C-alpha cells in the first residue's frame, strides 16, 4: 500500500516534469511575441530589449532556462515571477486558490446531492412522469454551455442587472474569512451554473448504474431475506456508486486547476482567470505555474481515486 502510493507519487513527479517541459517549449515556439518586447513599452530601443532579456534570463539557451526553472521549482518551491507585476507566481496562486477551491467544492457538493438524488429516484421509477421530466431537463443542462447558462443567470437573477434582483451579480466575490455571508451569497449563482452540467451527467449515470445493479442477483437475495425495501435500495446504491466516484475525483481534480469559463463570467478571482489573463498577456511564468498546478491536481486526484477505490471495492488490490 505505502509502496504503491510512493511509486504513484514518483510517477506523478515525472509526469509533472514532462508537462513543464512541454509547456516550456510550446511557449517559446508559438508566436506569442517576445515577452521582453511586450515589457519594453512603445517603440523600444533594441538595447533596452536586450537588457530586459538579460534580466529575465531569456538570452540563455532554452535548456539552461529550463534547468534553472526546474531547480527553483524543486529546491525552493519557487515558480518564478510574473513578467508584468514581478510578483512571485507562488503568491499569485496562493492568493487565487481560495476562490477556486470555494467554487469547486461548493459546486461539487451541490451536483453530488442533486445529481445522485435525482438519479436514484429516476432509476427506481423508470419511465414515470418524474423520470421523463428529470431526464429531459438533464439533457438540456448537459447541452447548455456554462458561459451561456452563466449569462442567463446574471440576466435573470443578478442584483445589479437582473430582471429579478435576487443574488449578488458578477464581481461580487469576497473571501470566506472576510465576510462568510457575502462569500456564500456571491457564490450561489456560480455554484449552480458550475454544478448544473455535472449534476445532469451524474443523474443520468446514477440512473443507469442503479437500474443495472437493482437487477443484480444479490438484490434479489436481499429481498428474499425480507429486508425492508429501503435497505434493499441502499445495497443497490452502494454498488452503483463506485463508477460515479471515479468520475467525481477526476472532475474535482480538473476544476481545481481553474474553472475558466465560470470564473470569467462571474468575475471570480480564481486560478482559471489568473491563467486566462496570463495566456492573453504572454506572462510565461504565470502560465507555467498555473498549468503545473492544474496538472498536479489531476495527478493527485487520480492517485486519491485509485486509493479510495480500493476501500470502496474490496476486490481491488494494489499491484
Amino acid at each position, binding site marked *: 500500500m505505502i509502496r504503491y502510493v510512493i511509486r504513484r507519487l514518483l510517477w506523478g513527479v515525472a509526469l509533472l516534469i514532462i508537462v513543464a517541459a512541454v509547456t516550456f517549449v510550446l511557449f517559446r515556439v508559438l508566436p506569442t511575441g517576445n515577452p521582453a518586447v511586450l515589457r519594453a513599452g512603445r517603440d523600444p530601443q533594441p538595447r533596452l530589449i536586450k537588457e530586459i532579456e538579460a534580466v529575465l534570463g531569456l538570452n540563455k539557451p532554452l535548456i539552461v532556462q529550463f534547468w534553472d526553472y526546474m531547480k527553483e521549482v524543486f529546491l525552493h518551491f519557487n515558480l518564478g515571477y510574473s513578467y508584468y507585476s514581478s510578483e512571485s507566481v507562488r503568491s499569485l496562486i496562493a492568493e487565487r486558490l481560495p476562490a477556486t477551491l470555494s467554487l469547486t467544492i461548493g459546486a461539487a457538493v451541490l451536483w453530488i446531492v442533486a445529481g445522485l438524488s435525482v438519479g436514484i429516484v429516476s432509476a427506481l421509477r423508470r419511465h414515470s412522469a418524474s423520470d421523463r421530466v428529470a431526464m429531459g431537463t438533464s439533457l438540456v443542462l448537459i447541452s447548455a454551455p456554462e458561459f451561456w447558462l452563466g449569462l442567463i443567470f446574471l440576466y435573470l437573477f443578478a442584483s445589479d442587472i437582473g430582471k429579478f434582483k435576487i443574488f449578488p451579480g458578477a464581481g461580487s466575490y469576497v473571501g470566506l474569512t472576510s465576510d462568510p455571508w457575502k462569500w456564500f451569497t456571491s457564490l450561489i449563482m456560480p455554484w449552480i451554473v458550475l454544478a448544473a452540467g455535472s449534476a445532469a451527467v451524474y443523474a443520468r449515470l446514477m440512473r443507469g448504474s442503479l437500474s443495472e445493479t437493482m437487477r443484480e442477483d444479490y438484490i434479489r437475495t436481499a429481498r428474499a431475506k*425480507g429486508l425492508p425495501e429501503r*435497505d434493499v435500495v441502499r445495497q443497490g446504491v452502494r454498488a452503483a456508486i463506485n463508477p460515479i466516484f471515479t468520475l467525481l475525483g477526476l472532475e474535482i481534480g480538473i476544476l481545481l486547476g481553474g474553472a475558466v469559463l465560470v470564473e470569467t463570467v462571474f468575475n471570480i478571482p480564481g486560478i482559471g482567470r489568473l491563467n486566462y489573463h496570463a495566456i492573453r498577456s504572454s506572462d510565461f511564468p504565470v502560465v507555467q505555474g498555473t498549468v503545473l498546478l492544474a496538472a498536479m491536481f489531476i495527478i493527485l486526484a487520480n492517485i486519491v481515486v485509485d486509493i479510495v477505490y480500493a476501500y470502496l*471495492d474490496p476486490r481491488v488490490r494494489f499491484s
Partner: protein
Amino acid sequence: MNAAASSPPGEPLLRVEDLRVEFPTEDGVVHAVDGITYQVHSGRTLGIVGESGSGKTVSSLTTLGLTRRQGARISGRILFEGQDLVTLPEDELRAIRGDDIAMIFQDPLSSLHPLYTVGRQLTEAVRAHRDVSRAQARERAIELLGLVGIPDPARRVDEYPHEFSGGMRQRAMIAMALANEPKLLIADEPTTALDVTVQAQILALMERLQRELGMAIVIITHDLGVVAEMADDIAVMYAGRIVETASAARVFAAPEHPYTWGLLKSIPTLYGPREEDLFPIPGTPPSLISPPSGCHFHPRCPYVQPDHTRIDPQLQPVGDEPGHHVACLLEPDVRRRLWEQLGAGRTPEEALAEVSPGAPA
C-alpha cells in the same frame, strides 16, 4: 386434484393450487406458470424438474412474492400455513420472506453482495426478523457459518464473498437462508454452478440440516441426479405446467410421460451398460408467449399422434398408484409398452415401431 405423491397425513406446509403467473411484455403475454398444483409437507422434499424456461424458478419466486414488482399477473392460491401468499399484503409477506420461507439461488457469487462482508450479509438476515443486537447477530452469524461447515468461522465471517471458494459461497448462502430456522427452504438449482464433488457435499449438507431442523425443502433443478438423491416426491414441469408427478422412486422406476422418459434417457448412468446410448430430447423448449396447440410437448414428442395437436391433456391419475399423475394423451397400455422398450435399450423410433400406438393395441 391432488398432485403430490404418497403424502403423509395431515395438512401440508405449502399447498399451491392452480397457480398462474403471466408477464405482459411488448411481444405478448408470457405464460410462465400455467396452472400448477403441488404440495409439500414438513420434513419432506419436493423436487421440481424441468428445462430452463419451464417456469420452475418463476413459480418459486412467486411463492416469496418476488415476481410482484416485475409486473406479473398472478392467480391461484399459495397456501402457507393456511395463509394465501398470493393475496397477502407486501409487508406481511416481507415478514415471512427469510424467516419462515427462505430461498437459495443458483449462482452463489452473483447472489452475494460483492461489497459487503459475508458476516454483514448474515447479520442483516438475522436482524431483519429478530430484535437482537449487532453483537448477538454476529455471534449467530459465526454459529451459522460453523453449522454449514465453514472452517474457522470466527475469522471468515469478516471476509468478502470473493475470498470464498464456490462451494463455501453456497454454504454461506445456505447459512443465510437458515439464519431464522425457516420452515420451508426453496433451493433453486443450488448445485448447478458447483463442481461435482462440491455438489455432493452441498446436497449432503442440505439433507443433514433438513433432518436437524425438520424443514420442508423444494428443490428446483434440471438435474435428475440431484432429485434422485434428495427428493421424496418429484414434479416434472414442461412449458409452465406439471406434466407428471409421483414419488421419486416411482418416477425413476415407472415414468409415464414421454418428456420424463427423455429426461431420464438423456443422463448417463454409472450402473447401466456402457454401450447404452443417450437420447437427447430433440428441439428446444417452446415459446411461452404462444405455446404449441394441444399437448405443449407434441412438437418434440417422438410418439405424437395426429389428434395430440388438438387436444390439451389434463393431469390424470395413473392406474391405482396413489399420487402418480400424468398429463399424456397416449393410452396407458401404450405408454407402459413404450417404456418397456426404452428400458430394454431401444431408441424411441424402434420402440415406436414395436408398439405402433396408432394401431389398436
